[in-house]
């Protein structure tokens, strides 16, 4: 059997730190991962909330108290921004996967589009939630 020997090659340094300059492309990409992982908090809280509504009014009052508290509002406004940013990031992945938008000016514009777009969509979501 052909055995692959592990060569002691140098590793590239970690992306965050003194080695790389922060750029729109890298920062918007890192934020996709952070928002994706962070969204689990809002989703678990939402499922706990629906679950409590299905079980009993006492349980619902308990979870609904957290959901409607300032902490709950913070989680949901944060989740709204996170889910829109993550969705726009996914759309950018589809654009990149098709081989388009890889040149630096377009890639940087797509990063700005994600930031501005997610902010606008979050404001729209808050408006829809409060009217």
């Amino acid at each position, binding site marked *: 059997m*052909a055995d692959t020997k592990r060569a002691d090659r140098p590793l590239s340094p970690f992306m965050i730190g003194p080695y790389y300059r922060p750029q729109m492309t890298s920062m918007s990409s890192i934020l996709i991962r952070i928002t994706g992982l962070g969204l689990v908090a809002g989703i678990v809280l939402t499922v706990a909330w629906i679950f409590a509504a299905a079980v009993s009014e006492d349980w619902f009052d308990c979870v609904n108290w957290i959901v409607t508290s300032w902490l709950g509002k913070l989680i949901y406004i944060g989740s709204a921004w996170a889910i829109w940013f993550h969705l726009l990031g996914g759309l950018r992945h589809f654009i990149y996967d098709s081989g388009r938008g890889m040149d630096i000016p377009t890639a940087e514009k797509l990063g700005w589009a994600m930031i501005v777009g997610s902010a606008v969509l979050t404001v729209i979501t808050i408006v829809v939630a409060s009217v």
Partner: protein
Amino acid sequence: MRYLTTRKRAEGLGSARSGTLHHIAMTTSGWALVAIVPLMVLVLARTIGGDFDTVRATFANPFVAILTALFLIVGMRHFAKGAQTAIEDYAHGATRAVLMMAVNAISTLTIAAGLYALIKLAL
């Protein structure tokens, strides 16, 4: 000893040993979520803050129930696979295995609890 050439061991698999399956799964579930997420956000934005009976009535609605089920099943599996990539980047050995089990447990438990609640509200 297995009589495999280097090429045979690598063909179609790449360094992750699973080829492009992970990428395809993330892309297809991603497209599904492009349709599901805006509707789910709209429903939640309109329902959060409502009282006990309003919330129960909303999730008892067949369209909302199916949408929520789709969001949980497609979304949490998308989450588990996405978290897998993050874990594979930073954790190794036993830590990686424990984190993977934890992520799969959280996503499966969330799907199960959500579906139980939706069925209970629908019936």
